């Protein structure tokens, strides 16, 4: 972390223990040069703060990770993906995988797709049972799933570490018996396969092509994607 290399500068300390109750105010008995000196000292203090902030800004600007936020870009930098290749980026053919759900049943991508009518999709949502995750999941239940009932919706729990833990989290978060099927990604293989993190949403159409692999945000991209299948 580049900031760990920064040295903080020490402010100028004024010596002496003299207490000046009204210190920053120009003494009324000061005239001419005295008041000038007083305001000069205030300017020096202001200059010190300016230099401190300048140092901070330079330090920040030197950190590549931060530049993305300090001066964010809206340029489209998505990589070009060769159609028909296997992979998890948009436009690629998703590799098959097998994973156990919260009830202990083994699910495979190929079997889920095979049982699906054209025009539908497998939707994976990666959850760590957090407030943002819950908000997204609730939004899917109320707005997305009713509009696109033919698709299959899976919550991928990558934090509980066991099928029992996933089941417990599913129940305590109120998703037992819901229209979601919860998958126990106990060895985080699915997380790694899709290069996913919290609230990553993956859409795989009935022909196995990845149509979306990004953050859920407000759900509008997911709905657009499902509508366009």
């Amino acid at each position, binding site marked *: 972390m580049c900031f760990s290399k920064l040295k903080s500068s020490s402010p100028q300390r004024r010596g002496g223990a003299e207490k000046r109750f009204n*210190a*920053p105010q120009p003494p009324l008995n000061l005239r001419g040069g005295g008041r000038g000196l007083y305001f000069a000292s205030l300017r020096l203090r202001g200059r010190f703060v300016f230099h401190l902030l300048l140092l901070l800004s330079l330090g920040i600007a030197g950190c590549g990770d931060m530049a993305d936020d300090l001066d964010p*870009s809206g340029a489209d930098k998505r990589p070009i993906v060769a159609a028909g290749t296997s992979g998890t980026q948009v436009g690629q053919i998703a590799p098959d995988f097998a994973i156990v759900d919260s009830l202990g049943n083994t699910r495979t991508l190929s079997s889920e797709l095979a049982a699906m009518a054209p025009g539908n999709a497998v939707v994976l949502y990666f959850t760590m049972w957090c407030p943002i995750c819950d908000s997204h999941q609730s939004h899917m239940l109320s707005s997305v799933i009713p509009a696109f009932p033919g698709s299959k919706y899976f919550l991928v729990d990558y934090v509980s570490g066991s099928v029992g833990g996933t089941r417990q989290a599913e129940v305590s978060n109120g998703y037992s018996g819901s229209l979601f099927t919860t998958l126990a990604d106990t060895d985080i293989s699915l997380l790694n396969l899709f290069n996913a993190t919290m609230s990553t949403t993956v859409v795989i159409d009935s022909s196995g092509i990845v149509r979306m692999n990004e953050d859920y945000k407000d759900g509008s991209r997911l709905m657009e994607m499902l509508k366009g299948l």
Partner: protein
Amino acid sequence: MRSVSPRSICVAAFFLGAAILTERPASAASCCGGGSASSLILPKFSHSMVDASLSIEKYDGFWNKEGRYIQDPPGSDLRQYRLSLGYAHRLAANWQASVVAPYVWNDNRYSGLSSRTEGIGDTSLSIFYEAFDSIMCTYKVEGISDLKPASYFGASLTVPTGISPYDEVESSFDVTGRGFYRLDGIALFDKTVYPWNASLLLSYGIHLERPVNLEYGNYVEPYRKKLGDRALGSLSFGYTQSLKEQDTMTYTATYSDLWEAEGSINGESDSTTGLRKKSVSGTIAYATAEKNWIVKGSWGHTIKQDGWGENFPATDTFTVGVSHVFQ
């Protein structure tokens, strides 16, 4: 009663105000970014101040969008450690400025996953105007003028120096900031009738819209995102106890209510965002007779029951800090 100077009273009162700002709820969470810095306020007539504090924030469940409290998955232990360094400087008789920058360590342990990451958090730059020229503290109320509070009006800019979801990061566990500039207007009213004190802090902030083309290291179709406006109200009551040699110990209790409106994506409201958090805190501050060294400890607590928050993690925050004031 022992003789205590008006200046001592005011410095003690200031630390109540400072305590409020220190307890300003951050957006910290393993899932939501964190490490937002608070502001510093310099005591009247002081030249400058340095401040260092260490906070441990322990996550314990969350409130969903409907305000229902939900526990974290079994076996999880989610923490964030923050070392905040701050400097405040008097620019003129009634003007002061400050900068606070936190360094953040995320320590997230679930049954099936562990992560320890670190980085600088979001930095806060503030400027305050003191709408009073003399000591506003008093020993007793003899007239209506004695009830006039010390009023501070300021602005604070949160600079996204932290690591956000829109940086080159691999996972949400790496995040130490929200990635957005925020401009807050702040008003602080502080009244001390020795040894009692009351403070009211009000702030309203707007996030600036930004383009996004990167999410957790993956380039996506560009879009514009804006977090919702944010409001905070804090009410504090304190008592200052005189110790030997005019040292003082100040005890403060604070109630805070934080609200953030829904954000937007490409100008459309995002109904999955927005938050609410109500919290209480207690602070103890020890100040030397000269009031140039202050040692503080605080505990911020959220009530882990339905209705005390929305769409936000429930946490307990323990903070110890030390300030040195240059007269």
